[in-house]
């Protein structure tokens, strides 16, 4: 896909939206205004944006516990997301899902997921549907380096390979699996090497560089759409914040994080390149910054003002309507 002016500006807005959204969450948690387990995507914006910029509503994405970035990049309504995190009835999931379960299947977003690796088979299933129904769609599984050790990863790649499913498996290798460095738990230098066991092509992208992700993901997506089967795409990236909001990061060397944050910030890298090549102007970027900032503030205000769900909602939506089942006798 050609990277037009609109697409580039759109990509910048998306990354800025992710960055702003996640920073706002940290602020809200520290003020005691937001609760629950939150895992922010700071530093990894280019991966979600670079992949999802090439997807339509008929393409599917399965995500992780660190899913806000994928949701935003896939087009889930940000105001709905903010309301969901505040547990409001106007939230994407009516306040019943929370951070790790935000989903919008109509927009092709199969959900963030609280179980490490669980999204991988789900995306594989979505790819199966696309193949059987011949929709021309693809399914993307986003997951981390830690998930690449889960049985579900290996079983899914194997299955997608033998069935030649239109899937792209995007491993966001950010160097850390919760509190444990990746090099301790993964014996190969590049997770991409694992694709060989499944006779699957693989690629490695610089996850901090939107353009590299865009290009490599584009190739994998095109392959899938052509019916040539799945690809494993490893994006080397870095998690700027801790595993979850409130993680004091005592286990991670401060200078390592400093280096990534000052030298490899994906938004700064993007800005440097587009300004340098005259693709976008400083004004474009500042305007986008302002719009995004205002949008997020309004989303917070709207969420705080929105109604909480009714208590009766605890037991609704457990099943689809089943008119034939007899209701249990009341005492």
């Amino acid at each position, binding site marked *: 896909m050609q990277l037009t002016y609109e697409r580039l500006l759109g990509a910048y807005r998306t990354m800025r939206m992710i960055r702003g959204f996640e*920073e706002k969450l*940290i*602020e809200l948690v520290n003020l*005691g205004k937001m609760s629950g387990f939150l895992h922010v995507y700071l530093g990894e914006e280019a991966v979600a944006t670079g992949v999802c910029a090439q997807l339509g509503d008929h393409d599917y994405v399965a995500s992780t516990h660190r899913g806000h970035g994928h949701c935003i990049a896939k087009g889930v309504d940000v105001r709905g997301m903010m309301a969901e995190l505040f547990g409001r009835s106007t939230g994407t999931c009516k306040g019943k899902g929370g951070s790790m379960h935000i989903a919008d299947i109509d927009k092709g977003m199969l959900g963030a997921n609280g179980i490490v690796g669980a999204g991988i088979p789900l995306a594989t299933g979505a790819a199966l549907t696309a193949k059987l129904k011949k929709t021309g769609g693809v399914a993307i599984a986003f997951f981390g380096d830690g998930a690449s050790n889960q049985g579900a990863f290996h079983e899914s790649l194997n299955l997608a390979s033998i069935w030649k499913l239109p899937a792209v498996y995007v491993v966001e290798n950010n160097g850390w699996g919760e509190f444990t460095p990746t090099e301790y738990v993964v014996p190969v230098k590049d997770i991409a090497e694992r694709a060989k066991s499944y006779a699957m092509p693989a690629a490695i992208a610089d996850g901090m560089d939107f353009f590299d992700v865009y290009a490599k993901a584009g190739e994998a997506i095109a392959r899938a759409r052509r019916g040539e089967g799945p690809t494993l795409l490893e994006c080397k990236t870095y998690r700027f914040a801790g595993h979850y909001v*409130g*993680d*004091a990061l005592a286990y991670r060397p401060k200078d390592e994080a400093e280096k990534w944050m000052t030298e490899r910030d994906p938004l700064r890298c993007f800005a440097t390149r587009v300004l340098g090549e005259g693709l976008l102007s400083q004004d474009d970027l500042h305007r986008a910054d302002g719009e995004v900032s205002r949008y997020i503030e309004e989303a917070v205000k709207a969420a705080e003002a929105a109604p909480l769900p009714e208590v009766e909602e605890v037991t609704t939506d457990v099943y689809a309507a089943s008119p034939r089942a007899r209701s249990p006798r009341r005492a």
Partner: protein
Amino acid sequence: MATPIAMPRLGMSMKEGRVVLWPVAVGGRVEKGKPVVVIESEKTDVEVEATQSGVLRHVYIAEGETVPCGTLLGALTGDVAETFDADAFRREHDRPEVVTRAPQRRVEARPSEAGVAKSNRRAVAPAARALAQQLGIDIDAIAGTGPGGRVTKEDIEAWAARRERLVPVGGGVHLEVLRSGDGPPVAMLPGFGTDVSSFAAQARALTSAYTVLGINPRGVGSSDAPGLDLYAVTNAADDVAAVCGEPTHIVGASLGAATAIELALRHPDRVKTLTLITPFVDASPRLTVVLGAWCRMAAESSAETLARVLLPWLFSERVLADATACDRIVRGLAAAAVPAATLSRAAAGLRQWSGSRQGDLARIAAPTLVVVAGADLLTANGAAVASLIPGARPVVIPDAGHAVMIEAADQVTTAILEHLR
């Protein structure tokens, strides 16, 4: 616009933190992303980054103080000049978390032996309890026939069905009346310490032509047992009158005969014919002593032992010589056993009545049959009673004991049938 700086929640177990250092003085500038305050929690110093660039405008919590997570530590503003109300800002943003402590565990007292040990409470099925409550029945009055003596719903139902046979006799008292057969009514009044089952043989014979009303007196069978000092024979007669609304053939044995006599004198309109089996008007010393012992044994021994002791007082040598018959009779007597409280009250009533009606027997108008048992040890003066009642016909059954309607059932039956015709 002012930006709050709050004590962050780092890690799931953190409840409070200590302010270690404000690296920038109030009024000094700080850049977004640079440390604005250093806090310590769980032995680790953590730099908290400024979320906006600006000026440190106000410090609420000084170095060295420890506060809960969420407490407002300070405020940043864009510059020193912009308006800022420290108190209002604090009211809006200060949100110290309440530190909850785990509830105190009470030391468990050891369960007392009485509670844990086998309870003496009877087992009662919930369905039985519910039905008993619904019918207003005292469940303690009902024996259980379920496993382990459990009171079942069937037990309640059986008891209730028997209750339905109860007839009100006035004063809130109900008597059990076992009704069978079809025809003119015949009331059967049992003797001391037994119930209408003693008339089983006679009842069977009568039902083809008569309606048999077996009337258990107060405290016997399912009849009410009012808590009086004694059950007077006069009350017993009034009870029978209440049950029999019309002229009825009356058959009474022993104490039941006394009741029948009393009935004939107090309510002659109720009496069509009178049959008195082993009657008395004056209790002999032997009868009085045996009754006293009977009451004591009922309170102290089993129903079976009591029945064995009573055998020689109620039956002739001929019966006593037949072990099989004795066993059968003992089982029957034990099954018909009357509660000790009733026995005492009935005995007291009997003593009170004894000797009171000797002179009145001449007033009895109803055709009367007196069945006399030749070997009756307890009420040997049956013939004398017959002679005192005008027109009374004595029928003697030689060699039979006091419980003649059991021992010589057929003969008694025949005599009654003839008399009723």
